């Protein structure tokens, strides 16, 4: 008994100890690698390829930060986390940042003491069902068995949606997306629910994607973005402005093709400040002047990353929709680099 308390206290003290250390930037530089928390495997967002290299939309954010801070896009240790382990991993200092389809909510930001640095994907929760069920709307799912990843906001939205519409369902809690896919395909649940982007990515991995339809109802707002711990604002700034640099670069037309030419200097002062040929923005962040250049050279700007990983020409096939630049009717809007 004494021993149990001792280990409990020890574990608690270690967790708390991680919270107290502040200068994440120094830790990352000293370590030489960035510890980035990602999903356990969601094609298009974060999944290892056949050679074991992590790739995907969320992975690209990690690599951009590593390039900006360490100058090497491969100096990233990817740490797979589940919906349940991700916050503990971040709070304990096991990872420096989390880029894992995580929904920005009030209580996570305020109560769990995390800092969401921005939004890299505007999403909403949807349902996927086999076409042979003949279901066309989520409101027809009365009495259905629904697989849902446990420890996520989806679990709460699901409960709310069925309660508000006064229909019943049976939740089957599962740990990872892969497990949900297996349960769904085996028919032990009628429907699978998660963020619509995740559904598209999951369906792309099916043998016959055409046999499954994603229902039209989007039952929640799911702004997904990378996050860091509360209390280290310098580090938070670096991650935030790296993400903003990717978004702003698309707006200004900076691509991986023309970045070398543009970084010599242009007549657009905003681009000059972004790429470091004018101003001291990098210095203000505690980095050098070329930080954003390096981040952009990894995978290009936001639009290029989107198209390559989850865009319409990939198996996942997501349209830009809300995730277009504000100039094109979307919600992406990076604050000015000034």
């Amino acid at each position: 008994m004494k021993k149990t308390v001792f280990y409990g206290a020890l574990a608690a003290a270690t967790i708390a100890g991680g919270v107290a250390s502040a200068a994440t930037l120094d830790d990352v530089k000293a370590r030489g690698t960035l510890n980035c928390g990602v999903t356990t495997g969601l094609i298009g967002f974060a999944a290892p390829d056949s050679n074991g290299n992590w790739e995907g939309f969320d992975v690209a954010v990690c690599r951009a930060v590593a390039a900006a801070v360490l100058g090497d896009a491969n100096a990233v240790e990817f740490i797979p986390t589940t919906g349940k382990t991700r916050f503990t991993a971040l709070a304990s200092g096991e990872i420096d940042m989390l880029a894992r389809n995580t929904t920005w909510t009030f209580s996570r930001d305020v109560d769990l003491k995390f800092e969401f640095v921005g939004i890299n994907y505007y999403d909403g929760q949807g349902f996927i069902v086999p076409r042979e069920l003949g279901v066309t709307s989520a409101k027809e799912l009365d009495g259905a068995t629904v697989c849902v990843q446990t420890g996520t906001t989806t679990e709460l939205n699901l409960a709310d949606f069925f309660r508000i519409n006064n229909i019943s369902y049976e939740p089957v809690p599962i740990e990872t997306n892969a497990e949900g896919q297996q349960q769904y395909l085996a028919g032990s649940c009628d429907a699978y629910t998660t963020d619509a982007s995740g559904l598209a990515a999951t369906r792309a991995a099916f043998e016959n994607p055409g046999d499954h339809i994603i229902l039209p109802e989007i039952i929640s707002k799911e702004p997904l973005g990378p996050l860091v711990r509360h209390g280290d604002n310098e580090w938070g700034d670096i991650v935030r402005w790296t993400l903003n640099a990717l978004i702003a670069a698309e707006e200004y037309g900076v691509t991986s093709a023309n970045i070398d030419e543009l970084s010599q200097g242009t007549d657009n002062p905003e681009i000059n400040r972004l790429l470091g040929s004018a101003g001291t923005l990098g210095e203000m962040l505690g980095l050098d002047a070329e930080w954003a250049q390096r981040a952009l050279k990894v995978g290009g700007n936001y639009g290029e990353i989107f198209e390559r990983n989850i865009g319409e020409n990939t198996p996942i096939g997501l349209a830009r929709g809300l995730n277009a630049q504000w100039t094109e009717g979307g919600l992406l809007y990076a604050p000015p680099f000034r």
Partner: protein
Amino acid sequence: MTTLTDPPRESFRLSMLINDTRYRSLTFQAIALVILIVIMAYLGMNLVANLAAAGLNISYEFLGEPAGYDINQRPIPYDSQSTHMRASIVGILNTLIVAFLACVTATILGVFAGVLRLSKNWLVSKLMAVYVEAFRNVPVLIWIIIIFSIMTVSLPGPRDFRGDDATASMVFDAFAFTNRGVYTPKPIWEAGSTALIVIFLASLVAIWAYRRYARKQLYEQGNLLPVFWPSLALFFIPTILAYYILGRPVSLEYPALQGFNFQGGIQIRGSLIALWFALAIYTGAFIAENVRAGIQAISKGQTEAAAALGLRPGRIMNLVILPQALRVIIPPLISQYLNITKNSSLAIAVGYMDITGTLGGITLNQTGRAIEAILLLMLFYLTISLSISAILNVYNERVKLKER
């Protein structure tokens, strides 16, 4: 004349704490205790200081807030608007349900396998040896997942029961084996069913009284009365007679396919079955070894003596060997029961919502109150484990060797 005098009393000196064997162990125990207290205090203060630095505090207020999530197996009424406290209670009940089922099944399985392993029949004893070795040498988590996967993949989904060309059908039109679990008929208690239950309980009491009477007759008069058939008759006849006399107060509700799932009846979910069977079969293998050890600890002379009295092998086992073997079997059995209870926390692997899944899983995650939730979990498992030990220790007191 001699005078007896006490040897001169040595006065206590500080160095005796180290040099004198009478005090040395006390000294070291005291030092160890102080060090332990200092370390614990340091960790505790470190925790409090770090929590304060991070702006967090220890608070159990979250238990009163609405949980917001649903649970599929609900022994008590619960919905997503109930509190985290109630969600935890649902979890506790689910833990107790699976632990109870697994303990009972594992005991039955273990006793049979343990006895059969000592069988003179080569095939039976080797089969049991294979069972014991295969099951206790593979981690229980793997067994849980294997059983769950086999159920999910091999059993038909509810959809397969539909239509004229259904590929699956219900057993006796009453039981449906699906990959979501097993659906069984549910008894509906109507007016008059209370009387039926009372009669059933009364017949149980009658069986007990009759057996007591039979034993008394045997010990005092030497008359061997039949026990098995009268007990069986007492068990069934009064209840069945009353059932028809009272106008069939209990009817069955059969599960039927409606919409996406079977409705009505009782659903035993796949997750419960996987967890229950895996825990029972796994722990049953350990109990089998305990039982074998217990039986082998009884001197062979006991068997021979009983045989010399003319007892049949079955009776030798039941009346002579097992009662004595229980003395050896019970203490390790306690720890197997504790193992079942603690191993049931692997439930989350198959999505069974036990206390670790509700309080230690979703509640912890949604509220972020990790330390509070883990402390509560520790308290719960500690309470349950100590209760199980206490109950079995009382039983052990009763069966252990009485020294007169």
